[in-house]
């Protein structure tokens, strides 16, 4: 019945050690930043200058280039958090705790931006900033879940103990998000006819698709860079907590 906690030396475990993780990913930061900036420049140039108006919405389609990537990222970031939560609970991977904690604020911001740009897009097309349609409402609920998780992280004083508990809640949230999405869609169709304008449109000509894809990539790379940087800071913060405890313990003992 004895449990073996000697670390196995596979690749997976080597980046488990905070110092190793920083050493491996530190050099990646600058090239990734360069790629992100390049992608943004190309994307913006395409989006603002080089893409046609939409036959139906005219120029407001340009907001989609900023709205859709954010909406997609809000789900993608929660996905990475759910995977990290599994990493924390199943494999007890220290970097999983750190990545889960670092991703939460980013996810929250991208979700908020998705709502912000969605509202600005809704105004000209539907006539109101806020429309209780299925997609926007479930994004709002997703934002509440993100803020709940951030509040949960901050409520714990011992971050090492907090990781597994927040991981459990993140997974419970991950299971419930599709259910929430389904129930909100069902609810919104029940209360008013399907919104006149379908967000992603029947088909997208390549001239609109390419800027969208580029902006997609730009935002995703932006998330990766910020996530890595936030993880490095979180590792330092944990190191500080350990040192402070050691100093505190150093005095009385």
């Amino acid at each position: 019945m004895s449990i073996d906690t000697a670390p196995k030396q596979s690749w997976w475990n080597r980046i488990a050690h905070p110092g190793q993780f920083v050493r491996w990913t530190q050099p990646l930061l600058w090239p990734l930043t360069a790629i992100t900036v390049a992608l943004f420049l190309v994307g913006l140039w395409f989006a603002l200058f080089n893409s046609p108006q939409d036959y139906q919405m005219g120029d407001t389609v340009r907001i989609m280039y900023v709205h859709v990537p954010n909406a997609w990222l809000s789900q993608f970031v929660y996905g990475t958090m759910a995977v990290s939560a599994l990493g924390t609970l199943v494999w007890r991977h220290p970097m999983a705790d750190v990545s889960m904690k670092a991703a939460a604020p980013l996810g929250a911001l991208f979700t908020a931006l998705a709502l912000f740009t969605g509202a600005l897009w809704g105004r000209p097309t539907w006539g109101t900033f806020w429309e209780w349609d299925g997609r926007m409402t479930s994004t709002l609920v997703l934002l509440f879940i993100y803020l709940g998780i951030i509040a949960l992280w901050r409520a714990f004083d011992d971050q090492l103990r907090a990781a597994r508990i927040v991981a459990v809640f993140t997974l419970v949230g991950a299971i419930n998000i599709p259910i929430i999405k389904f129930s909100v869609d069902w609810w919104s169709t029940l209360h008013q006819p399907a919104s006149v304008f379908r967000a992603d449109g029947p088909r997208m000509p390549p001239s609109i698709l390419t800027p969208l894809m580029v902006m997609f990539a730009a935002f995703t790379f932006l998330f990766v860079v910020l996530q890595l940087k936030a993880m490095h800071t979180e590792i330092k913060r944990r190191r500080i907590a350990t040192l402070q405890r050691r100093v505190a313990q150093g005095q009385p003992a």
Partner: protein
Amino acid sequence: MTGRQVFPPLTLRAEGLSCGRGGMALSQDLVFSVPSGQCLLLRGANGAGKSTLLLTLARIIRPLSGSFGIDGADEDMPLIHYCGHRNAIKPRLSVCENLDFWRTMNGANGVSSQAALARVGLGHLGDLDAGFLSAGQTRRLALARLLVSLRPLWLLDEPTAALDVDGHALVGQLIDTHLAMGGMVVAATHDPISLSKAEQVQTLQLGAVS
């Protein structure tokens, strides 16, 4: 309490065990082996990690490194009685109700509730609400919980806390009986535990981490 052997021969073994809280090692590279019929006393100043070690052995806290286990035990049989500082007694329930609850929850293979209460000196207080018990009496009720369900390994954190003089003697007798039945005890305490056979006792000094 008959002296017959109740538990199979077991040994609590630990190698290079270091445990702590929040990533801070309080005690490191502990090696000990407690065979059946033996008692391990944990000595050390406050904050030396006695309670943390007990909670680690009780599988409540994960060890930082090293491993420990009970050899010779089958997996599913519950093996551990943990008796911490807090007595887990509900003041609004009567003494008997409290004990009966734990007897059912932990498996009623020990003595009857009434016999256990008598053994710890609370025989006459069965129907009293536990809220009216004094600290020492509540501690005795917590000790009675160890008697109503038979488990080989006892993890006692300051068992003699709040107990009077004959309370200390009671703890010694309970441990004696348990060891005679082939059980094992790991006790963190500052007071001397008087056992009948001195050779049954091992002592582990927990000091500051180097």
